[in-house]
């Protein structure tokens, strides 16, 4: 799956322990418009599993994972209408 080049909103969750990256994702995903894309940059190991699980539980679309410029994993989510 090809990932978007730019996110409407990028959450910097570096250094945050589980479940804080997901808490931020839950709080702020509505800031992007429906159809918009949000990226979560997180080095917490649980985020790899919990971002897709959050998308499943909240009916959002998980797009995949790449890495930010500094090598930290970045997870992509599209807000459903």
């Amino acid at each position, binding site marked *: 799956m090809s990932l978007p080049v730019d996110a409407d909103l990028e959450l910097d969750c570096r250094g945050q*322990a*589980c479940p804080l990256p997901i808490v931020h994702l839950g709080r702020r995903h509505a800031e992007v418009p429906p159809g918009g894309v949000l990226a979560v940059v997180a080095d917490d*190991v649980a985020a790899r599993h919990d971002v897709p*699980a959050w998308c499943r539980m909240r009916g959002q679309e998980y797009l995949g994972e790449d890495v930010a410029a500094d090598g930290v994993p970045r997870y992509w989510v599209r807000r459903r209408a």
Partner: protein
Amino acid sequence: MLLAALERGYADPRRLHGPARTAGLLLENAREVCAEALGLRREEVTFTGSGTEAVHRGLLGLRRGRARVGGAVVHSAVEHSAVLHALEWVGGEHPQVGVDAHGRVSPDAVLAAVEESTAVVALQAANHEVGTRQPVAEVTTRLGERADPVPVFVDACAAAGRVPLPEGWAVAAASAHQWGGPAGVGLLLVRRGARWRAPFPVDDRSDPRAVGFEDVPAALAAAAALRAVVAEREQTARRQHALVDRIRAAAAAIPDVDVVGDPDDRLPHLVTFSCLYVQGEALVAELDRRGFGVASGSACTASTLEPSHVLAAMGALTHGNVRVSLTRETTAEQVEAFCAVLPEVVEGLRP
């Protein structure tokens, strides 16, 4: 039972003096009792120092018996870490079979992963974290129909005593503390005709698969506990299944809680769920403060600081995870009390 065994079964069963012969008879009796409870023959039962040791020796010994074919062990992604660590230790490529959202492998996927160089298929009887039972009987039947039948190793540590063992496997492992027996006793189960070869140095015990001076009193206590648990298994399972249904419903009624594992085809006593936005460690601590001892598969509660590989393989939420294991003594009142406090505990820990 344990005290009587300590009085009479203290000697090394390998020796020839009177107390040793008594210990030897007690040990053979313990094997017989375990075999009968599990539907096996006495010679098929060997006592080990733990369930983990039984897994290591059982799996690696079955693999060694297939050395002429190859070394690959096809296994599910949700096997216990004892299986995964054993495979890591021997090295090489071992195909892993993914699971569905309930944590179950598909027999088609297992069969598709088997190649000419496959030595063994390793599949647990039931998952130790989420309780889901695996289709072991179908897998063993279909593997047995191949021109070159591939033997199956079954990790039955979570299932033995709770539910009847599946059919068709070559080697299995069980763990006495899981059915209320003492810690430090595992069972290595090798079916007659299975090509099992000791993977580690051997010893000169009367049971050729045993290593070291057996803990005879503990083996007897394990056997007595297994017999008692199996005798009332159906009533216990029915009662625990209903209590777990109650906990599953109470957890599912809380917003943003993911109840995982098969709702029906599962171990009777185990239930796992994950609470969105809650820290697993805080949840365990708060439930403990209120008198409920639970486990967790969340990374913050693990010695490895990695989330549970079982939850991850299932696509389940890994944070805010709680695993409740009922004992035979757990009452309906205790379960109701747990269900009553759960919503406020979860909501109280949400940011």
